[in-house]
C-alpha cells in the first residue's frame, strides 16, 4: 500500500493521461459522469454516485460492429474492431466494480462477446471506497462492502483526509503504481490507523442508511409463484411510464438491440442499449408475448431478482447502487419491490 497527497492529484492525472485514456468523475452541466479527463476538467471524487454508471466503458451505448456495401444484392462486409486505447478509470465505487463481474457473466461466457472482452481487457479499474454513501444506497443487501477493497478492482483506494491510500490488487494495478511511484509515498502506522478509522466510519454510515435492512432472503417461493403475484406487479406497473430510465442508468442491465444504419448503398450495423420496458422490445411479426406494461415491468424485476440468480449461482442482477431509486420519475423502486415480494406491506 502507498499513499498520495490530494495536492498531488493534478500531477497524477497528467502522468497517467500521457500513457492512458483517463476516465474520472467529471462534473458538466450539473451532472457527474465518468468522462475522459483533460486538463482543467472539474473532477469530483467526493460525491459517491455518478449519474450514469461506468458500464459504458465496457459496453458502449452504441457500437458499430460491421460496415457493409450492398449494391444490386452483391454484398461486401467488413467487421469493425472494438475501438479505444488502454484506459484507466479512477473512482469506481464497489457496487459498480461488482457490476463488471455481473456483466462478465453474460458477455464472457461462451460464445465470448469479443467487443466486450476487448473493452474489458484494455481497462485498469481503480475503486474508491464510499466515504459519503447516499440515503438511497443499498449495496450491503447484495453482500457488497462499500468500505472495502472490492474483488475485481486492479487497485483499491480510500480517501483518508489529506491523501488517498492505494492498494494494488492485480498485475495491471501494480504496473500502474510502479509507473507513477514518484508521486506516492510509503505508509506508516498512522496511515494504517487512518485507513482503519475510515473503514469503520463508512461502516457506521452504512448501518444508518434507510435501506440498510433490505432482506432479499425474504423473497420466497418458486419462480412461478413470484411470477404469479400479479397484484404486486399490477400495483407497481400502474404508474410505470415505460421511460426506460431505470434500464439505462442501471450498471447491470445488458439488453441490447441490433440495428442497421443506411447510407447510399453502404451502411453500418451497430448495437445499442435497449430496455425490456419498451413495448417493441419483444414485438414479433406475429405479435408480442408481453402486451402490457405489467408484464414488461415484471420481466425486468423477475430477471434481476429471480432469473439471473438462478443462472448465476445466486448472484442478483442488482448491486444496490440506488440510481434507479433516485431517478425513476414515478418512484417505482426496486427496494419497495423487494420489500413487497418479501411480504412487507409497505406503502408504495
Amino acid at each position, binding site marked *: 500500500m502507498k499513499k498520495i497527497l490530494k495536492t498531488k492529484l493534478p500531477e497524477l492525472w497528467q502522468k497517467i493521461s500521457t500513457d492512458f485514456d483517463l476516465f474520472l468523475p467529471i462534473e458538466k452541466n450539473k451532472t457527474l459522469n465518468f468522462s475522459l479527463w483533460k486538463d482543467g476538467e472539474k473532477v469530483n471524487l467526493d460525491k459517491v454516485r455518478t449519474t450514469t454508471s461506468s458500464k459504458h466503458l465496457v459496453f458502449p451505448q452504441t457500437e458499430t460492429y460491421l460496415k457493409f456495401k450492398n449494391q444490386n444484392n452483391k454484398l461486401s462486409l467488413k467487421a469493425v474492431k472494438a475501438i479505444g486505447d488502454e484506459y484507466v478509470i479512477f473512482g469506481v465505487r464497489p457496487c459498480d466494480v461488482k457490476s463488471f463481474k455481473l456483466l462478465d457473466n453474460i458477455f464472457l461466457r461462451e460464445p465470448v462477446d469479443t467487443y466486450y472482452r476487448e473493452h474489458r481487457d484494455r481497462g485498469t479499474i481503480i475503486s474508491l471506497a464510499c466515504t459519503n454513501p447516499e440515503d438511497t444506497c443499498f449495496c450491503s443487501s447484495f453482500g457488497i462492502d462499500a468500505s472495502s477493497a472490492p474483488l475485481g478492482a486492479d487497485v483499491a483506494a480510500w480517501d483518508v483526509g489529506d491523501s488517498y491510500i492505494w492498494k494494488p490488487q492485480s498485475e495491471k494495478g501494480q504496473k500502474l503504481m510502479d509507473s507513477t511511484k514518484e508521486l506516492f509515498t510509503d505508509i506508516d502506522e498512522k496511515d494504517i490507523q487512518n485507513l482503519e478509522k475510515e473503514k469503520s466510519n463508512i461502516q457506521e454510515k452504512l448501518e444508518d442508511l434507510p435501506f440498510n435492512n433490505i432482506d432479499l432472503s425474504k423473497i420466497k417461493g418458486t419462480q412461478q409463484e413470484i411470477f404469479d403475484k400479479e397484484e404486486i406487479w399490477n400495483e407497481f406497473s400502474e404508474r410505470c411510464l415505460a421511460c426506460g430510465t431505470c434500464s439505462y442508468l442501471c450498471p447491470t442491465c445488458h439488453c441490447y438491440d441490433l440495428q442497421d444504419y443506411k447510407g447510399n448503398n453502404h*451502411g453500418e450495423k451497430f448495437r445499442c442499449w435497449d430496455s425490456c420496458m419498451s413495448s417493441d422490445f419483444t414485438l414479433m411479426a406475429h405479435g408480442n408475448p408481453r402486451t402490457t406494461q405489467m408484464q414488461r415491468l415484471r420481466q425486468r424485476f423477475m430477471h434481476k431478482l429471480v432469473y439471473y440468480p438462478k443462472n448465476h449461482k445466486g448472484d442478483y442482477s442488482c448491486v444496490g447502487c440506488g440510481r434507479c431509486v433516485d431517478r425513476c420519475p414515478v418512484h417505482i423502486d426496486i427496494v419497495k419491490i423487494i420489500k413487497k415480494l418479501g411480504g412487507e406491506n409497505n406503502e408504495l
Partner: protein
Amino acid sequence: MSCSCHDQDPLIPQIAVIKEVRVDTHDVTTFKIVDSFGKKPFEFLPGQCAMISIPPIGEAIFSITSSPTQEEYIECSIKKCGTVTDYLHELEPGSEVGVRGPYGNNFPVEDLKNKDLLFIGGGIGLAPLRSVINYVMDNREDFGVVDIVYGARTPGDLVHSNDIFDVWPKEKETAVHLTVDNVSKNWNGHVGFVPNFVKTLNFDNNKIALVCGPPIMIKYTLQALEEMGFKKEQVYTTLELKMKCGIGKCGRCNIGDKYVCKDGPVFRCDEITELPNEY
C-alpha cells in the same frame, strides 16, 4: 452451440449466396444457401437455426429445414410475414446475403435412436421438423416406425409437397397423415385441426413425439397427446420468441431463466411446464 467464424465475434455474419429459390406456397419460399465458395456455410444439427441478414433491411433468425446429412448447402423455408422476410422473397438466385450460425440447441437425435417417432407439424412449423425427418430417413435403420402428421390451413398452404406426397410415404415403415383446416375442391383428404386429427389416429403412446407449429396449435396438440397417454418426457417441441443476437446475451428472447436462442428453441415438454407462461 458454436459459431463458424472462429476468431470473429459471433455477431459478425459471413457472405452467403442464394443458390436456388423454390416457391412452396403463396407465402412460403425455400432458399438454398451456400457460402461464397459454393459450399455449405456451416455444420449444424437438426433443429438449429441460422441468422440471415440483408443489410440494411435487417436480420432475422430462421430454422434450418435441410438435414445435416445434406453436405452441399443449407435450406431455409421462410414465410413472408415481416420486413426482412418480405425483402427475402424478392431475392433471386445469385443474390448475396449475410449468414451466421448455427444457433440454438437441436432435437436430440442420438436419444431418439431405435424409437418410434411421431412428427406433428402445423403450417411453416414443418420447416425444423423436416430437418430431423430427412436426417432420420438418411439413417433409416437407426430408427423405428415413423409417423408424420402434418396440417395446414388449405391444401395450397402445405409446404414441401414433394416430400409429403412423393418421398416420405414411400420410405420404409413411414406413414404421412395430412389434414387441412378448410375444405377445398381439390382435396379428398382429412379436414380438421391438427390436435383433433392426432387424436383420431389412435397412435400408441410409446412413441417420441416432436411437435412444431403455431403457438396455438402446439398448445392444443400437447393437450391431445397428454389425453392419449403421452408423458411430457416423451414430447419435444420448439418455442419461438424474437431473437436478435442468437447467443443468449441481448436479452430479448428469455422465457423465465431460459433463453430461447441458447437453451432452445427445442424444449422437452417437462422443461416447458417449469417456465412462466410468456410465450
